[in-house]
């Protein structure tokens, strides 16, 4: 079904306006909106009818899919979506948006950091996963491998997984990470089902031309992965050179002014007219 571009843009505009500002310190870098819409449509199509888990979703792809379906811009997509994220601002923003826009029956979010073992009840409970992890430039793709291994454990046999990572043939590190990621997936019982070439662009000022691809994997055998806390050695350079994983959760300061302009950033200057009281 062709999508109505105006309706799609307006729906994703709702989602983007709801997103917390990215924390650059944790490699939160948002995908540009045009590419976000294209990717959301692709993911919704591939995951139609499936119960899908997003391990990290700062871009709000999952929420965009749920909202596009709710607004009937997309006529198919996942039956259920669960967002796992270590940033409570993301979790809360998904939940409040879902409540406000009437799609809480399709999407939910909960706090989780890949450093921890997965809750037992989630293991193998899904038939689709989506990750867009830190791209692993300075840890030989270890951060991608960590997210990927957690995500693989969440899906049952026959499940699909979408991995979004950097892909630029002129940048050797992206090719090394691509190769390592595919190797990790294959060793954990997955095969490559489809690969979308590098098309997604990001709000990344020092590499504006860098794109990500999307690899779709399919789980064909048991993963045999251990569900253990992450070993210390895997935390190094997690968010970039010299930036290990050392924050468990980003906690949101409770406030009642969500989605309202921060009044510390402006003041109101009264209209001054003669005779006015």
């Amino acid at each position: 079904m062709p999508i109505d571009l105006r309706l799609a843009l307006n729906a994703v505009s709702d989602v983007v306006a709801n997103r917390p500002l990215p924390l650059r310190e944790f490699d939160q870098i948002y995908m540009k909106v045009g590419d976000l819409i294209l990717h959301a449509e692709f993911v919704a199509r591939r995951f139609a009818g499936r119960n899908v888990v997003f391990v990290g979703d700062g871009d709000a792809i999952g929420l965009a899919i749920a909202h596009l379906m709710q607004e009937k811009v997309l006529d198919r997509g996942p039956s259920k979506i669960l967002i796992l994220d270590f940033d409570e601002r993301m979790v809360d923003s998904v939940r409040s948006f879902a409540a406000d826009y009437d799609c809480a029956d399709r999407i939910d979010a909960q706090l989780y950091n890949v450093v921890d073992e997965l809750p037992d009840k989630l293991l193998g409970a899904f038939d689709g996963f989506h990750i867009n992890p830190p791209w692993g430039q300075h840890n030989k793709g270890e951060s991608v491998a960590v997210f990927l291994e957690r995500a693989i454990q969440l899906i049952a046999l026959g499940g699909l997984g979408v991995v979004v990572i950097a892909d630029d043939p002129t940048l050797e590190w992206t090719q090394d990470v691509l190769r390592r990621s595919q190797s990790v997936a294959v060793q954990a019982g997955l095969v490559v089902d489809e690969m979308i070439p590098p098309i997604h662009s990001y709000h990344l000022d020092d590499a504006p031309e860098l794109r990500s691809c999307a690899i779709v994997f399919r789980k064909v055998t048991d993963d045999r992965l251990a569900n253990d806390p992450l070993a210390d050695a895997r935390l190094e350079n997690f968010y970039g050179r010299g930036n290990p994983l050392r924050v468990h959760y980003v906690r949101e300061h409770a406030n009642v002014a969500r989605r309202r302009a921060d009044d510390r950033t402006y003041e109101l200057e009264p209209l001054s007219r003669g005779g006015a009281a």
Partner: protein
Amino acid sequence: MKTIAADLPAIVFMKVGRHAGEDFAAIIERKMKEFEQTGMIFWGYGGGTMHPIQRVQPFARMMIEQGAGLTLVMQPIDSRHPDTKVVATEYSKDGAHWEPIPRGIEVRGSRYALVLGEIRPGELEVDLLRYRVGAGPSAGRIASDYVQGRVDKACLERVETLPGGTGGNLIKVAYTAPLKEPYAVLLK
């Protein structure tokens, strides 16, 4: 002014000019006083290409480990930075712990700052063909290809072999300053 030989192993290159309603000459004078009073300088900057924690600090540590110093080189340009009266009150090395800006230091209209030693005047020619990007996803790109358009600052390391073995892309630099630990900080 005496020309300085451009033989720095690692540099932070930055185009500089009028900033936050203050002429460049006045900024330099104020920053030199800052150094006299405090022994260091917070050099404010913005943009999205040189995040203190993601880009500058790791690059600086790597260079220091390799035994290379790290120097800010400034190329004056006509700048159209908007006037603003906002002054930072706190800084952070890691984004988690915040401290008051040291007495005697004032940073205007910037969300980040390099931490510098003494600023030295002097003409310097930097050949951007002899440097490559040293941090971030564009690491390895030749500086003369990278520093253009909206990109006006970069962490660069010297390369020994010229690409194509020819040419040069000389940039006139008017001031330099060594970076000091913690090299770069967030401001608010």
